[in-house]
C-alpha cells in the first residue's frame, strides 16, 4: 500500500534536523499518511537551489534563508514559506585555545556570560591592533543564517565592529572544528554537535551560547516551496501534524538515548551518540574541564517552539538591513512579513486540539519569566525571551528598531 502523500525533504547533517528526521524514521509521518523521503545535502546552497527548482518539496533550512529566497538575495529567487519552526536555540560560539587564553588574560571566565566574554574579546582585539597583528577570523555557516546575525549582534553589543575589527568567513558546519584546529579560523558560531566536537578534540573552548544571547530565539525552520504548498495543502497539513508529534517525542527526556542513537546513524550525523548528549541535556563541556548546564539550551517542542512567529522573521529582516544585505523598503518589509505562515500552522494543528497562540507576532525580549498567554485549545506558556543586552524588539516599531541599530 502506498502512502497518501509523498514528500521529499532535504536536510543538512546538524542536530536540529532531528524533528524532521524523527518524523520520517520513527513513524510519525507514516501515521499521517506521508511517505517522507529524506535526502542529506552537503551545502545550504544545494538545499536552497534544489527547493527552488522543485527537487525538494520541503527542507530543513536556516531561519533567515526562506526570507533571503523570497527577497531575491539568492542566485535563483524563489518564493519559499515557513509554516513550522524546528526549535529554539542550539548554537554556541567557540574559539581556539589560543584565543581563549588571550580572553582569559583579559578577564574571561568559563561561565558563558556573553557580556563578560565579549568584553574580554574586545580587550584582546585592541591588544592585537596595538601589536599590529592580523584581525581575528571567525566563521559562520552562511551569510543568511541566525549564526551570522547572533555572532554580529553579540560583537556589536560588546563594542566590536564585526566588519572592521574582525573578519567573518563561511565554513560548512562539519568542517568547523578541523578549520579551528588547523588555525585557518580563530573562532566560529555553529549548531551542535560541531561545538562539542571541538571541545572533545581538545582544540576549542565554548565562550557563550545562543540561549544566553537571546533566550528562546529562533533557529532552523521547515522551508516549503510556496507553489507546492498551494498545490498540496493536505499533504502539507499532514506533514505539519507529523512534525508536531515528532517534536513532542524529541523533547521528551525519556527518549534522549533513542534520539541520540538515531541521529548518530551514518545516514544522519555519523557522530557517536555521546556527542549528541550535550545538546539534548543542555549540559555542556566548555573546554579545559569546565562544565555548565544551560536552561533552554535547545528546545525542540516546549514553549511554542514550533510556532512560526512573524516577529522572528521580522527580526531577521532587521539584521539583514543592519549588515547591508538589503535596503529597508516597504516592499521588502512586506515580503519579510508574509514569509512565515502561522495561519498554515494553525489550520493544520487545529484538529489536534493543541495549544495555539492567538497572536502572530510578539514583542521579543519583553518576557522576563515564563508567562501563560492567550491561546486557543489547551493553555500555552511562553519561555523568557530576553536579549542579553536588555534590548527589546517590538515588530510594530520596526522603523525605530532599525534606526537604533549600531554597528558597534
Amino acid at each position, binding site marked *: 500500500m502506498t502512502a497518501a502523500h509523498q514528500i521529499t525533504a532535504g536536510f543538512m547533517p546538524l542536530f536540529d534536523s532531528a524533528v524532521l528526521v524523527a518524523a520520517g524514521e520513527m513513524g510519525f509521518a507514516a501515521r499521517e499518511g506521508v511517505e517522507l523521503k529524506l535526502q542529506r545535502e*552537503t*551545502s*545550504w*546552497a*544545494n538545499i536552497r*537551489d*534544489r527547493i527552488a*527548482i*522543485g*527537487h525538494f518539496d520541503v527542507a530543513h533550512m536556516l531561519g533567515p534563508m526562506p526570507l533571503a529566497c523570497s527577497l531575491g538575495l539568492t*542566485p*535563483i*529567487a524563489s518564493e519559499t514559506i515557513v509554516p513550522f519552526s524546528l526549535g529554539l536555540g542550539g548554537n554556541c560560539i567557540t574559539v581556539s585555545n589560543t584565543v581563549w587564553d588571550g580572553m582569559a588574560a583579559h578577564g574571561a571566565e568559563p561561565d558563558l556570560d556573553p557580556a563578560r566574554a565579549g568584553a574580554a574579546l574586545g580587550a584582546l582585539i585592541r591588544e592585537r591592533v596595538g601589536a599590529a597583528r592580523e584581525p581575528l577570523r571567525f566563521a559562520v*555557516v*552562511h*551569510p543568511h543564517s541566525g549564526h551570522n546575525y547572533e555572532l554580529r549582534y553579540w560583537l556589536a553589543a560588546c563594542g566590536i565592529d564585526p566588519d572592521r575589527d574582525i573578519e567573518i*568567513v*563561511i*565554513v*560548512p558546519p*562539519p*568542517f568547523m572544528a578541523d578549520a579551528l584546529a588547523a588555525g585557518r579560523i580563530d573562532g566560529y558560531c555553529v549548531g551542535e554537535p560541531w561545538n562539542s566536537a571541538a571541545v572533545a578534540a581538545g582544540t576549542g573552548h565554548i565562550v557563550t551560547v545562543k540561549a544566553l544571547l537571546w533566550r528562546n530565539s529562533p533557529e532552523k525552520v521547515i522551508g516549503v516551496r510556496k507553489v507546492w504548498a498551494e498545490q498540496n495543502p493536505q499533504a502539507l497539513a499532514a506533514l505539519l501534524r507529523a512534525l508536531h508529534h515528532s517534536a513532542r517525542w524529541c523533547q521528551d527526556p525519556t527518549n534522549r538515548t533513542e534520539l541520540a542513537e538515531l541521529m548518530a546513524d551514518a545516514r544522519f550525523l555519523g557522530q557517536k551518540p555521546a556527542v549528541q548528549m550535550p545538546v539534548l541535556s543542555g549540559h555542556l563541556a566548555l573546554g579545559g574541564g569546565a562544565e555548565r548546564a544551560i536552561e533552554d539550551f535547545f528546545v525542540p517542542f516546549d514553549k511554542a517552539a514550533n510556532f512560526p512567529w512573524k516577529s522572528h522573521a521580522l527580526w531577521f529582516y532587521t539584521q539583514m538591513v543592519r549588515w547591508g544585505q538589503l535596503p529597508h523598503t516597504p516592499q521588502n518589509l512586506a515580503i519579510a512579513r508574509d514569509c512565515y505562515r502561522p495561519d498554515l500552522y494553525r489550520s493544520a494543528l487545529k484538529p489536534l486540539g493543541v495549544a495555539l497562540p492567538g497572536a502572530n507576532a510578539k514583542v521579543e525580549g519583553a518576557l522576563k519569566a515564563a508567562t501563560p498567554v492567550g491561546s486557543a485549545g489547551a493553555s500555552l506558556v511562553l519561555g523568557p525571551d530576553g536579549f542579553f543586552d536588555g534590548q527589546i524588539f517590538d515588530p510594530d516599531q520596526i522603523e525605530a528598531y532599525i534606526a537604533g541599530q549600531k554597528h558597534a
Partner: protein
Amino acid sequence: MVHSSLAVLVIDENRIRASIIEAGLREAGHERVTVIHDVAGIARRIAEIEPDVIVIDLENPNRDMLENMFQLSRAVKRPIAMFVDRSDQASIEAAVEAGVSAYVVDGLRQERVKPILDMAVSRFNAFSRMARELEEARSELENRKVIDRAKGILMKSRGLSEEAAYTLLRKTAMNQNRKISEIAQSLVTAAGLLGPLEGE
C-alpha cells in the same frame, strides 16, 4: 572567436571529471580554462585568474564558502549569479542533475555562456557513462577470472579438457537458469570449502 575570450575557472575535487569538463570547454573553443581541485588558498587564485565564469561541482561542500567569497571578492567586483535563465527550469534541472552548477559574473550575456553549460553537462554525462562502462568492464573481468578458476578446478578434478570444462559450466548454467559466472562462483566457493583442490 568570442567564446575564447572568456576566462573559465573549474573547481572540482574529482580530477577525472574536472579534466573531462576542461577538455569539453577547450573543444568548444575556450582556451583560458583553469582547473582547481583544492579550495585552500582559493581567494588568491581567483584574484589571479579573474574568471568570467566559475563552474563548480554542486556536491562540493564548500559551495556556501565559495559563493560568499565570489560575492565579496574584490577581484570579482560584481555579484555572481547562476547563469541559466531563471525561466529556463529544464536547463537548471539538467545542470543540477548532472552534478554541475555554473556561475557567471552578472552582466555577461547568457547566449555567450550557455554553450559552456551545455558542454559541461554533456561532458559530465560522458563522464558518468565512462565511469559506468569502466565498472561494467571491471565486473566483466572479475567474472572471467572466476570462470577461468572454475574451469581449472573441473579440469583437475574431473580430468576434462578446457573446452569440455567450459561446456559443462555452460550446460549447468542453462539447466539451472543462472549465469555462468554464478555457477563458476559456486564451484569456486565449494572447492574452497572442500580443500586445496586447485593446488595454487
